[in-house]
Structure formats: structure tokens, C-alpha cells
């Protein structure tokens, strides 16, 4: 009995050590994604017609990918139990997918935004649509297999950014006091994007888990966007034609 409990104590100490190592690693990861966060916090304040198409978007994507590779390698090399590593592993994947989705959203938006007809590809097998597909994410991050649950959570987080960007753009444009601007059309574009995503999410049989909880907030975001579009349409402020393909 004494020997068994001695072994238990050793294992407890080992698990504590691994927990501490994982906490350090998580802190390092949180620090590593601060530049990504700052980049998109700035982006959100820029009006759609002033978004500059970034030539170095591939550089940004490669930064996200290498950051992902670095941290997922560190986690997998840590000889801890799966249950200990699982949360951090999923967090690294989720954050990496999230930044890829946002960067792609702004890139496609900036390329497509004109003062005339705005044509945006929603998803595409070959080129990047405004929403990156799971296969495209898988190929960018060199996954063997995509975890759809994490991909969908990241997608729901992107929707929150889309709503926030719409609100910011409408507020900033209103402050500039120009009644005719293509920038108001961002509300219609984003409302259509969220509508398509909402329809897609309705195809899923969600069980009562974290994905379901996050999905439940989607309807409020959709409602918010629709209200903005309705108000802007009443005032004839949406002047640019939109085509979401």
C-alpha cells in the first residue's frame, strides 16, 4: 500500500510540473498573438473603401502558420497527458484558424470594394472566397485532418468581428457626414454573408456543447445587422449594388 501511494505522489508531482509547463507555454502563445490582435483592432476602424489591399497578406498568413507550427510542436513534444494538453492544443488551432479567416476576409473585401458594383465571391474551391473553406484552412496550416468543431467555432468568432466592423464602419461614415458613400453598403454585404452562414449552420445537428452555445448568439448578431440594413435602406443610404456570388 505504501509503495502504491508513493507512486501516486510521484505522478501527482509529474502532473503538476506538466501543468506548470503548459501554463508557461500558453502565456508565450498569448504574447505571440498580440501583434495579430493589434493588426485587426486597427483594421476594424478603417472604412471599407479605405482598406488597402495588402500585398504582404501572404507574409501575414505565413506568420500565423509558423506561429501555429511552433506552438503546436512545443505542445506535442511536451510529454503530458492528452487531457492536459487538449485545451491548449485546441486553443492554438482555434486562434490560428480565426486569424486566417479574418485576414482573408479583409483581404478579399479590400480587393472587391469599389464605388460601383461590389462583387464578392462567398466561397470558392480554387481561389479564396471571402470565407475560407475547411479544406483551404487545412492546406494552409498543413493539418492532416481538419477539426470541424474548431473550424466552426472560429467561423462564429469571425461573425462577431464582421458585426463589429459593420457597426464601426457605419458610425465612422456617419461622423464624416457624407450622406452618399459606398461605405454604407458594407452593412448589406455583411448581412448577406452572415445570412448565408446562418443558413449553413442550420444544417448542423448541434448537441448541447460549446459550439451550440456560441451558435445561439449568431441569431442576435444577424438581427443586429438586419436592423442596421433596414435603417440605412429607409434613409436611402445604401447606394452601391452588391453581388455576393
Amino acid at each position, binding site marked *: 500500500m505504501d509503495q502504491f501511494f508513493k507512486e501516486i505522489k510521484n*505522478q501527482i508531482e509529474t502532473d503538476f510540473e506538466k501543468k506548470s509547463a503548459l501554463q508557461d507555454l500558453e502565456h508565450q502563445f498569448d504574447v505571440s498573438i498580440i501583434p495579430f490582435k493589434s493588426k485587426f483592432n486597427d483594421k476594424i476602424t478603417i472604412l471599407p473603401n479605405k482598406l488597402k489591399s495588402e500585398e504582404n497578406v501572404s507574409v501575414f498568413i505565413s506568420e500565423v502558420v509558423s506561429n501555429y507550427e511552433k506552438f503546436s510542436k512545443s505542445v506535442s513534444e511536451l510529454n503530458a*497527458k492528452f487531457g492536459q494538453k487538449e485545451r491548449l492544443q485546441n486553443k492554438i488551432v482555434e486562434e490560428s484558424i480565426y486569424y486566417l479567416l479574418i485576414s482573408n476576409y479583409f483581404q478579399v473585401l479590400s480587393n472587391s470594394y469599389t464605388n460601383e458594383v461590389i462583387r464578392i465571391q462567398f*466561397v470558392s474551391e480554387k481561389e479564396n472566397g471571402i470565407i475560407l*473553406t475547411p479544406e483551404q484552412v487545412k492546406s494552409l496550416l498543413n493539418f492532416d485532418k481538419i477539426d*470541424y468543431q474548431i473550424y*466552426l467555432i472560429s467561423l462564429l468568432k469571425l461573425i462577431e468581428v464582421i458585426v463589429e466592423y459593420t457597426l464601426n464602419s457605419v458610425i465612422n461614415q456617419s461622423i464624416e457626414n457624407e450622406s452618399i458613400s459606398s461605405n454604407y453598403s458594407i452593412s448589406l454585404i455583411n448581412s448577406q454573408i452572415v445570412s448565408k452562414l446562418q443558413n449553413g449552420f442550420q*444544417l*448542423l445537428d448541434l448537441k448541447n456543447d460549446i459550439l451550440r452555445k456560441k451558435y445561439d448568439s449568431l441569431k442576435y448578431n444577424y438581427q443586429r445587422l438586419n436592423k442596421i440594413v433596414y435603417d440605412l435602406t429607409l434613409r436611402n443610404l445604401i447606394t452601391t449594388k452588391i453581388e455576393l456570388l
Partner: protein
Amino acid sequence: MSSDDLIFIPARDELRIKQDDREEIIRLVRDITSYSKKCIFSCHRSIGLKKLKSELLEYFKILSDRLKKIRIMYITNLHLRGNISGAIEELIEFFTFAYFKNTGKLLPYNDFIIMIKCLILEKFEFIDYLIEDKELEKVDDEIEIDFIDTSDYLMGLFDCTGEIMRLSISQSTNTSGNFKAKETWENYKFLQKLYEQFIILVQLYPGISIYKGIYDNSINSKGSISFKKKLEVFESSVKKIEATLIDMLVSDKEII
């Protein structure tokens, strides 16, 4: 191709597979819990060794089948460790109780793992070691058991103490005409020693927690609350045997 074809239909298919796996594992662990309980009931019964053996062997067939399936499914469902632990604790409760009833000792963890491997391989001869204290034959086949570790064993041991208490009380009040004071006292000593080890663990790690096979030291966590609750039940089991012993040795005796 539409977004449904590129995103949501494949996502739905994948999520369905995961959900089906989870439900299947829940069904399997339910059987393990149920048949482990049946094994415990058999051990409590006052039946001969032959009858006990035949009852247990029947249950082993089902336990073996369910463990085999879980072992295969667990490889792709590591995140379901928490769903499996409860049933494994019940299984440990049975093994440790059966061994204790036979030998009065704590079943070594390594021997338990050997028996689980035998169970999976349908080599049920280990039953002689479990209930008759014969030699345990080593298994040749190197199979890995990833879904059980010492943390489950520790939690299963807690539950075993409740069975030892039940056994002690029923032994002490059986119809044979004599109180089994010595056996009850031995059980009491065993539980006291085990309780002391658990108390040392709590003193060393006040927030000791076991959850999904992981040891942690965080007060108020789910695993810590469950550990403390089991410890309270353990303490009350020790007290119950203590009271039984006092009754047997002092209160119920007309002449001491």
C-alpha cells in the same frame, strides 16, 4: 460548389460521426458499470466458490466485449476520457473488492492492469487469482490500455471501501450465531490504514483533484469536490465499522 457543399455538409457528417461515437461509448460504459455492479453483488452473496465463479465468468464475457470495443474506439476519441472514467472506477471497485474479500489485501495496481488485459483477451483464468489467490499468469500479448491509469484506481478504491464496510456489517450480523469480530476488526484496520494514506495526500495537496485521469491541485474544481465527497463517504464507512465493533465487543456483550 456552394458553401453548404464546401463547409456545412462535410461538417455535419463529421460532427455526426463524433456524436455517434460518443453515444456508442456512453452505451458501452453503461454496460461496464452495470456488469461491474452485478459482479460486486455476486461477491457479497453467501454462495460457494463454484457458483461465484460461474456467475462472474458470465459477466466477464460481457465486460470483455465492451472493454474491447472501448479500447478500439478510444484511439479516435481521446477527448471522451471523462465519459469512460466513471465505469472504470466501478470496474476497479469490483476487482479491488473481490481481491480484498479473498485476501484481505490491497490489489496491486499492476496486477489489476494484467487482469484487464486478460479480460480483453478473454483469458478468464485470472479469476483463480482474483477469488482464490492462486498465481496470476502474465499475459504474452502486449496490449496497451490507454484509458485507465492510477488516478482511476485511486477513485475506484474509494468506492471499494464502501463495499468493505457493507461486507463487514453484514458479516458481523449474519445468522451463523457467532459475531465475526476478528474479521471485522481486520477490515477496520485495513480501512484505517488506507484512510490514513488518503489523508496524507490531502495534507500534501489540499486542493487535490482528479479529473479525466489528470491530477491537479485546485480547490473548488470539479475533480477536487468529487475527491472530497468520496473522502467524506470513506470516513463515514470507517466510523460505521467502528460503531459495529464497539457494539460487538462492548455494548452488546452482557459480560466482558
